[in-house]
């Protein structure tokens, strides 16, 4: 085969996927950028070009900043907890015993449940009247702690964070469990012989070996929390008094409740840029494995 024929052959295989990708992924994104420059009610073909007006309005909108803050809080809060728990649990169930296999299935279980069911489940758990959480607190004599978790400004966002962790944790346990298995046993053995045990071994041996996975996990978590929608929408509607408003619930409100599709698309564009920036920042920040130089 000449090199030209080979290129043509390869192009033939790449073309269908590229066309589909361009049509269904790239096009809508480009279109979204275009729509964000219009005032459009999203109910007729009628729209008015307003330039960057939507963006100007958006940056002056205090609720946008509030929503971004909530997204970031969720990211920071849940990723710390998920990382700590996922690495610890992955470690604990890393060996090949029946119990470990069973637990792996159990931890993955929330991941396969639909988010709608997760939301309803947690609404039951957190229900102020018959929820299991408040019942437990009352039984333990902590009546003062039995509050309307989703109805209080101070606890609503954290409650959603807990539900999110519960749902997402299994995936990261699997991720880290798989990564742990790629660490050659002789490395661990050598570390042990050198006297590195427990937290020391975790810090100087295990974590550095997991670095690449850790980086990707953080990017996943950033995407997951910046794009969080169903849990918030179902559990609190962004309330009480916007205490759990996130970018996508605000976007939904603007588009479907207020018929401000142009503004909503501008929000989508900003969220897209934010997710890209945050992912890029994480990749850059965690590029250098701090232990690599010492090895």
């Amino acid at each position, binding site marked *: 085969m000449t090199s030209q024929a080979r290129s043509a052959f390869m192009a033939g295989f790449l073309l269908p996927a590229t066309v589909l990708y361009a049509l269904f992924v790239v096009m809508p994104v480009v279109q979204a950028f275009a729509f964000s420059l219009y005032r459009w009610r999203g109910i007729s073909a009628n729209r008015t070009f307003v330039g960057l007006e939507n963006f100007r309005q958006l940056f002056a909108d205090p609720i946008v900043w509030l929503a971004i803050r909530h997204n970031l809080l969720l990211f920071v809060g849940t990723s710390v907890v998920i990382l700590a728990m996922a690495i610890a649990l992955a470690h604990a169930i890393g060996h090949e015993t029946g119990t470990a296999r069973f637990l792996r299935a159990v931890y993955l279980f929330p991941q396969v449940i639909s988010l709608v069911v997760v939301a309803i489940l947690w609404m039951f758990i957190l229900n102020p009247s018959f929820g299991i959480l408040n019942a437990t607190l009352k039984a333990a004599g902590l009546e003062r702690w039995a509050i*309307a978790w*989703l109805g209080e400004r101070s606890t609503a966002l954290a409650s959603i964070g807990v539900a999110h962790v519960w749902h997402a944790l299994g995936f990261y346990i699997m991720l880290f469990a798989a990564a742990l298995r790629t660490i050659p046993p002789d490395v661990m053995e050598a570390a042990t012989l050198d006297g590195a045990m427990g937290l020391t071994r975790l810090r100087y041996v295990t974590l550095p070996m997991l670095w690449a996975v850790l980086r990707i996990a953080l990017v996943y978590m950033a995407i997951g929390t910046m794009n969080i929608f169903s849990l918030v929408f179902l559990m609190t509607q962004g*309330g*009480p008094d916007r205490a759990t408003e996130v970018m996508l619930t605000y976007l939904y409100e603007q588009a*479907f409740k207020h018929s401000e599709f142009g503004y909503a698309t501008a929000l989508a564009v900003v969220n897209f840029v934010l997710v890209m920036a945050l992912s890029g920042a994480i990749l850059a920040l965690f590029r250098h494995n701090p232990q690599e130089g010492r090895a």
Partner: protein
Amino acid sequence: MKRTKYALLGIAVALTVVVVVSCGKQSPTATKELEVACFKGGYGIDFFEQAAREYEKAHPGVKIKVWGNPRVWEQLRPRFIAGNPPDLTYPGWGMDHWALVYEGQVIPLDEYLDSPPYGKTEGRWRDTFEPSLLELCQYQGKTYMLPYFFSMLGWWYNKDMFEKNGWKPPRTWSELLALCEKIKAKGIAPITYQGIYPAYAVSGFLIPWVISAGGIEAFDNAQNLVPGAWKSPAFLKAAQMMDELRRRGYFQEGANGMDHTGAQMEFLSGRAAMIPCGTWLHSEMRNVMPKDFRMGFFLPPVLDEGKGDPTAVGIGIEPWMVPTKGKNRELAIDFYKYMTSLEKAKQFVEQKGTLMSIRGSDQANFPEHLKEPVEVFRRAKTVWSVEYRQWYPRLGKEVEDATAALLAGNITPEQFVERLERAAEATRQDKNIPKHTDTRGQAR
């Protein structure tokens, strides 16, 4: 190269032939097809399907396709944008109705409303509707929507609990406070509410008490965005009343964290004695309602020396409309005329257990839980409807957020009314928001 050209031409010709032939096949006789898209809520769409079959039988050559689902508005949006909407639609509460009107997507119906009702040669179709409901469908003097059934807003109480303890539904504020104290002493929550959806508290507490304190004008002025209306003494008074109930502990603890079904379950299970809700409560909860549960309906208790009409009642409609780009306008209207004939209206009342916008339909056999609401409506000298929420969604959202904050004790009544007025001012100043100036809350 030439050969390719001919091949393409051949394909084009073949396709054209196929298209022409298949088109020809579709219309052998002059069948008229009507597409009706409906919101499938608590009352289903079977009634409309049944009506379509009956109409087809009476009008040979007409074919009516009725379809719907619980999120039909999501499918309708792209159809409207593409200029290919159904002929007649009931898009449901999730659709921004007024946006359809502003964009010219639905037709003004006055010409048809002035024509005779279904199967008649004289009289006006308009006169068969309850006028106060038809007025909710107007913008700049034209009628763009048509009411079908309607809901009433009020409070429900647990009848057995009340009878067993010798309690009576309170009519006034002082009666309410006295009763709540007694209920609380029994270890029962006097009032619960759907905290996650503050719209219930707005139409169940705030607006009725605004009207009681300041008369219907106080609410009309607010809806019409008269400067200062949202922080008038009437609004402050209503906010103080809500705050007082909260401070006295008469609201169920944790209600601010409950969604509608959660709070309604609290009421049905007897842990709370009263709940504000519309007349849809029964149909919404019938699957989980204890078999022998009996509930009664009454208007929110009014201030002892209130200015407002104590018979004033809140109502809500879910309108139907005729899209501008529908293909069979006349047929759509005639079918809707059939659906709103007195006979069909009475059937709807009896089958679905709700109130209808057609005059005289209240002579039907109402189910037990609707008897009190019907009485309340017959006695009502004033009706009101939360319209600003549909007219100005952003204002509506802010009123609801502020209400949630007030009920949680996060803000004072003074701060509450300041917030409402600020939101109203923002709407007033926004030139891109079309303004409604039709006064509502009229005497019947």
